[in-house]
């Protein structure tokens, strides 16, 4: 199961928010979807899942809803927990598409362990801190154990250790044979952990390739308006934005 988008276009009124994007994410890939605010990252992912009307083709949206729910897990940006349910019950919601029974309880345990939440399983989810809630919601998506995992800014607001841990989990999910697509704003973490970066700007796909090839001045300047330092070190790729373009003192 892979994610395949061909010529995907989403219009708000007449104005295209996502404009003719073609993109494939294969099993084993951890693709970072990057771009400035308003570039259309969220819209692209929601349309790909069939959660909003679009033109073009999406391999996921073509599936009936029940099959799609087994094929793809979606972690929205809004961290919504409406009721004071226990952490284990919340994570178990990821098993809904699979029906009762089966491997459900084991999948919930695996997801809790991977996010370091085993000790939290009986706590009320609404009483956790924001960062802990974010990890619980990631665990919910993991428990779905779908071949495709899509996440919208999953690590925003987490502490540095939790951010690295979450990125390592996503990378491990990909290495384990899933196709992972995550919208990210932290380009440094994206550079280190993603196997591939896709750049969206004004709804168009403007760059697609390994982090080294994408995080170059020709992309960073026009798309993000920044200059950055990129270096290959003994610890891997290091990326640090240093100044806004045109800000020559920086």
């Amino acid at each position, binding site marked *: 199961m892979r994610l395949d988008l061909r010529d995907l276009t989403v219009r708000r009124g007449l104005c295209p928010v996502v404009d003719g994007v073609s993109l494939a994410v294969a099993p084993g890939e951890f693709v970072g979807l990057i771009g400035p605010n308003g570039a259309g990252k969220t819209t692209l992912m*929601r349309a790909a*899942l069939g*959660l909003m009307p679009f033109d073009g083709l999406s391999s996921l949206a073509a599936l009936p*809803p*029940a099959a*799609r*729910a*087994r094929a*793809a*897990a*979606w*972690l*929205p940006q*809004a961290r*919504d*927990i*409406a*009721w*004071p*349910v*226990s952490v284990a*019950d*919340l994570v178990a*919601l*990821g098993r*809904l*598409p699979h029906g009762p029974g089966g491997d459900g309880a084991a999948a919930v345990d695996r997801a809790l362990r991977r996010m370091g939440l085993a000790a939290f399983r009986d706590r*009320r989810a*609404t*009483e956790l801190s924001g960062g802990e809630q974010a990890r619980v*919601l990631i665990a*919910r998506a993991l428990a*779905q154990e779908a071949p495709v995992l899509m996440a919208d800014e999953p690590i925003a607001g987490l502490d540095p250790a939790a951010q690295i841990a979450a990125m390592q989990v996503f990378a491990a999910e990909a290495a384990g044979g899933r196709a992972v697509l995550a919208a990210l704003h932290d380009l440094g973490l994206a550079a280190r952990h993603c196997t591939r970066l896709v750049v969206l700007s004004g709804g168009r796909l403007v760059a697609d390739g390994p982090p080294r090839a994408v995080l170059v001045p020709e992309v960073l300047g026009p798309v993000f308006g920044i200059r950055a330092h990129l270096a290959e070190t003994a610890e891997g790729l290091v990326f640090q934005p240093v100044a806004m373009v045109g800000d020559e003192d920086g």
Partner: protein
Amino acid sequence: MTGRWLLPALGLLVAALFLVSLVTGPAGIGAAEGLAALVTGEGAAGLVMREIRLPRAILGLAVGAALGLSGAAMQGFLRNPLAEPGLIGTSSAAALGAVIAIHTGLYAAFALALPLMALAGAAVAVGLILALAGPRGRALSLILAGIAISALMGALTALALNLAPSPYAATEIVFWMMGSLADRSMQHVWLALPFLGLGAVLLAATGRGLDALTLGEDAAESLGVSLTALRLRIVFGTAALVGAATAVAGAVGFVGLVVPHLLRRAVGARPAALLPASALGGAAMLLAADIATRLVLPDRDLKLGVLTALVGAPFFLHLVRRMGREGA
């Protein structure tokens, strides 16, 4: 109380209150004698038991369950603990239908005119809410449409009162709107039960969708839940339950609001688990309240809706205060 024992315990409570309701009343029939007469149907006691107390107890159970179930479903769907089943306008529309039946004198000519008009009112409200909010709209549009419909129905009810043909009719309208289970017959039971059954079947199947909505509308849809189908089930199910409940019992408030609150913690706050618990809890609460109306002021005809509001409102204040302290 652990989740496993909650439903059996509530079931026993409902059964006990049902029996107490059967043996409570002004006719002065002993408990054993009354229950025996209910079975045999012989004599004056048999008539009282079968024609007066049995329908009253059945309606108390069924209406209470309807209000509890629809309250839990509405709170789950709107993801809001302050939602109540009347929110989508069906109870005020059903009340308007009943008020028109009283106002025009139709109910004096034909006994079932009142509940039938109330059901028609609820059906009109469903049509209006689907036209206003659209079949695919989200929760907020449903709330706004419900508020608009409730306001319109309330205004028309006030107009009917204002233009009441006689002070007697006005009094009748006011008393009816306070809600009561007194003097209901088996005809009311047979009229209400099909709609109550239909509504219960529609809402019983919403558990999975309501659970998924804990994560928000977007995540729920990605889990394979059709929000459009869920919304239609909620609107039609709630309308059938609340419309039929209002048709036979009048406006009984606070049950659908308070009962889900009371039981939420006991079921681990899971919306699907709350549905059956809240149905049983609502039945218990309404049976208890209806028994209380006969015991507290036996000769003053204390109205059921007045009692549930008198008990429910302070209790709700307590819950809100507790919620405020916990910051949840």
